[in-house]
């Protein structure tokens, strides 16, 4: 079963159609997804800024991380659940949306960045916990995280726009390939 046919199956399920067509449900989930940005990305950014030595310089990094982590985890769970619901409501179009694909790749990169940080310079935390400006590798991790989350917000916002949707792409073009369009999509041109 290809990912595309999985998405097509998902789109045919009862609750997917119900959420897609709901007057209140979909906007509500979308609003929760956007406003939880404040909790999850906002807190992550403050943590990244601490890593860069740009805020809370007198507070040990471990204290900032300990205090923000419960909120970040809670916010992350809400983001993932609401995001998954948004995908579930519109599976095929999301799967074939270039911005959605870019966003997923960026999310993986953000995860890798956090993992590298955790396995690397974070292990020597005791030696730099109280530094107003942490070591270079920690600053790089903070800077990379900041850039990635900004890019994720931009990509996420752009999913809503249909500039590169498959029914506007010419078969064989780079965007047609990158968005994973199939010949079936071209029929949409005639049946918008």
């Amino acid at each position, binding site marked *: 079963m290809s990912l595309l046919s999985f998405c097509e199956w998902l789109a045919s399920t009862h609750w997917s159609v119900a959420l897609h067509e709901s007057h209140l449900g979909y906007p509500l989930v979308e609003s929760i997804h956007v406003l939880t*940005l404040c909790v999850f*990305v906002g807190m992550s950014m403050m943590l990244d800024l601490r890593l860069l030595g740009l*805020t*809370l310089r*007198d*507070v040990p990094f471990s204290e900032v991380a300990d205090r923000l982590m419960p909120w970040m985890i809670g916010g992350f769970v809400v983001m993932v659940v609401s995001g998954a619901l948004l995908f579930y409501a519109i599976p095929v179009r999301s799967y074939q949306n270039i911005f959605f694909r870019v966003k997923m790749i960026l999310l993986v990169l953000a995860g890798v960045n956090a993992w590298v940080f955790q396995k690397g310079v974070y292990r020597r935390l005791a030696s730099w916990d109280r530094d107003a400006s942490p070591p270079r590798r920690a600053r790089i991790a903070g800077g990379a995280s900041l850039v990635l989350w900004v890019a994720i917000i931009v990509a996420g916002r752009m999913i809503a726009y249909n500039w590169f949707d498959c029914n506007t792409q010419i078969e064989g073009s780079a965007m047609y390939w990158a968005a994973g369009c199939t010949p079936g999509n071209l029929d949409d041109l005639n049946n918008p």
Partner: protein
Amino acid sequence: MLPFFQWCENTAVGKGIRDSFWLFPTIEAVHLIGLALIGGAVLILNLRLLGIGFERQPIARVARDAWPWLVGSLVAMIATGIPLFLSEAVKCYYSPAFWIKMTSLAMAILFTFTVHRRVAMLDESRLQPITRRVVAAISLTLWLGVGIGGRWIGFS
């Protein structure tokens, strides 16, 4: 009031954004980045005031550290919010969500730069914890109103 909104919509900036393919989405994305950052700064400050974060740090210390990011992201949000508004001013005029947002925003800014700031920077021994908690709760409610109102402009 309506003629003023019509004038806004007819400004060069408003027209330029409406005519452009990518300007509105791009400005909107920057507006969202500001939202995330102001959320982080406002939450950290209020968590400290509520007594559920950074208890070992003096309130004034946390407030001084969060303040520039709060003000900076607020400036970024207003700077991007104005052009977004200019591009669809008449729609905003008829949108209850827009008026709710602007009312909450005016109150939130007023409250933040007067009561909130003063309470956060004040010598801690001079205030009861309950006063600080109430101030934090009001601040969170006002900013949440701005956020919800803002999101709802897009649906109306």
